[in-house]
């Protein structure tokens, strides 16, 4: 281990330096970088979270912005300058109406099971739809629901937040209003026994019997 590195174990660089480091790392990466990653790459004792706050302020109103994406951070061009970037625009595969709606339902209702998506849309979800959203890395499998059948759930990803410029899933447009109006609830049909989840996958429950190691 070199001298400088040993030194840094005891003394963190000044905040101004830390800010420069965070700036350099965020600039170098196309993907959002987590605070944990920043911490791992900066000298010991650094406080990237604080440095990020300074940096964010510094870029306020500039051509590029320091933005939060879930628990990670990235630099992105300011939204009002998009018109300059025609050259950089990537042709995005047009999503079908079914895919767009499914995506919205996952985002607003997450974690949500396939049966719930179908119940909300009133039609069955085609294979290609979920497939496409997973391939875009906008949704992923979440935790299993602890209901009969233990169905898998879907949640949105960091890539989703990054793509739509959301700090986190709570910032989804109109989320509060929808929740207040009770429209994010999963109300069963009156008098109906909830058997949708049961049907979905009868054979899964014993699939993932926890191993002794895991439970220790």
């Amino acid at each position, binding site marked *: 281990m070199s001298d400088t590195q040993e030194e840094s174990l005891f003394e963190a660089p000044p905040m101004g330096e830390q800010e420069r480091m965070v700036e350099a790392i965020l600039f170098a990466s196309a993907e959002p970088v987590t605070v944990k990653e920043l911490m791992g790459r900066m000298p010991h004792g650094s406080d990237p979270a604080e440095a990020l706050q300074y940096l964010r302020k510094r870029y306020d109103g500039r051509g590029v912005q320091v933005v939060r994406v879930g628990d990670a951070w*990235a630099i992105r061009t300011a939204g009002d300058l998009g018109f300059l970037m025609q050259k950089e625009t990537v042709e995005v595969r047009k999503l079908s109406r079914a895919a767009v709606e499914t995506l919205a339902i996952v985002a607003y209702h997450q974690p949500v099971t396939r049966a719930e998506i179908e119940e909300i849309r009133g039609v069955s979800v085609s294979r290609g739809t979920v497939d496409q959203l997973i391939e875009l890395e906008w949704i992923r499998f979440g935790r299993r629901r602890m209901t009969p059948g233990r169905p898998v759930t879907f949640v949105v990803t960091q890539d989703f937040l990054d793509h739509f410029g959301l700090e986190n899933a709570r910032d989804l447009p109109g989320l509060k209003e929808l929740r207040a109006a009770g429209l994010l609830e999963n109300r069963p049909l009156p008098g109906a026994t909830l058997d949708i989840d049961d049907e979905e996958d009868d054979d899964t429950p014993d699939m993932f019997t926890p191993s002794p190691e895991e439970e220790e």
Partner: protein
Amino acid sequence: MSEEFQEDVISVADRMAAEALIVDVGAFEGPLDLLLMLSRTQKVDLRQISILALAEQYLAFVEKAKQLRLELAADYLVMAAWLAFLKSRLLLPPDPTEEGPSGEELAAHLAFQLERLEAMRKAAAQLMARDQLGRDFFARGITEDVQRTRKVTYTATLLDLMQGYARIRTKDEFRPFVMDRDQVMTMEEALGRMRKMIGFAGDWTDLTSYLPEGWETDPTRRRTATAATFAATLELAKEGKVELRQGDTFAPIQIRKRDPRDV
């Protein structure tokens, strides 16, 4: 005469109007979607919508489709049956002896479903109207990859993992059908063998003694060798080279060389 003509014109116009509606059915994503569209014609807040009126509109729609002999998917008909049931519940005074939810409760739930679907549609539109990465705002164009260190790390995605697993688990099902040749003796092989051996079979000999070495013990190999040898024997009998006999049902089959002088 003119009246008749008049009627014709109306029915054609009617028919076309009805068809225009029906043809659109392909554009609907199921009955709930259609109901939502029909509800818009009431031009009120979805919370104040008349489910009874909506049910009637839907039933009329299905009726028209039937008249035009257009095929509706089964779920449209299921919904029609359910709405007819709902309609009767809404119209008739509640029967205290009847169990289950009241018509109002069912209607309220349908209204809720419609409102929720509409809300999700709006939310989806709002979502897609947001600035999007790679369209309205952009990531770093030149990522830093100047100094290439030797260190290699490996990566895989969850998709790779799952597809890898699926590949193994479904491998057996998709295995093309092939015979396990090393476990099978063909009749040609047996015939070639028998032709060479038959010259020495002057006396009645048990067929099983002709099984080649190494094929008598393993059951699978024994079975295939026996079948092939037996078939070969039949072939030789047909050619007049051997004779076969069997003392009783399931008794050992015996063969011997046929003396040409016997003919």
